[in-house]
């Protein structure tokens, strides 16, 4: 189960993601993030309510980041819970993904 909300705040499109980003839900996550990236110049994924992420979820985030790069959008991943942060750490994504401790807005 994964759920997403969308909100515009001081120029950023904030996508709030709740639930689990696993192999079952990764496609849904990717679609939501891609749609936000297509429609907005600056997108922040708010992962504060994301309980869980697997490599499939990481892949979905990277695909969205790639789409953002391709269309010169800003894309940031924000407010990771400690366990989700660890998965990003294991993935070694620091130098290719903007990971923020807090939302930029």
């Amino acid at each position, binding site marked *: 189960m994964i759920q997403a909300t969308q909100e515009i705040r001081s120029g950023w499109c904030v996508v709030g993601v709740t639930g689990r980003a696993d192999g*079952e839900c990764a496609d849904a996550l990717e679609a939501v993030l891609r749609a936000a990236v297509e429609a907005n110049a600056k997108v922040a994924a708010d992962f504060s309510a994301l309980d869980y992420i697997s490599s499939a979820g*990481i892949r979905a985030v990277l695909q969205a980041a790639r789409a953002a790069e391709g269309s010169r959008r800003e894309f940031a991943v924000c407010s990771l819970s400690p366990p989700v942060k660890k998965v990003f750490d*294991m993935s070694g*994504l620091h130098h290719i*993904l903007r990971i923020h401790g807090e939302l930029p807005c």
Partner: protein
Amino acid sequence: MLRVRLCHNRHLSQLSFTLNGDLAELAHMMTEVERFCAAQGLMGDPQFQLTLAIDELFTNAVRHGGCKGVAAAVEIRLDAADGAVRVEFRDRGTPFDPLTVPPPDLKAPLEERAKGGLGVHFVRQIMQNLQYDRCGEWNRLTMELPT
């Protein structure tokens, strides 16, 4: 649809469950791991890591191993040992030893990284003493999570 049942002794120091080859089973796997970890006082980090490692192996068996659509394609057994959780992961997929997967290039550019290739890496980061063998129609991977 629920296809997972647990087998446990009094103290739930051991649990076995079976998963169909369907990613919707991930939710049930997580419930079983949670129950085991709750009984063992392993909530929090160990539970997250155990879940992640099993998730990656299961997802691979379904995605790459040909287990998709196969009933009871995966059997998982958890044993609480002294200072570790022993995991046996068995799947009826095509013969495949995950220990042969080379580590990912963590410095590759985004385009490359977005293709995937992190699942086995996570398993190897999290778990210790991984051993693979092919037993008849089963891939069998045993490993330990230090607790």
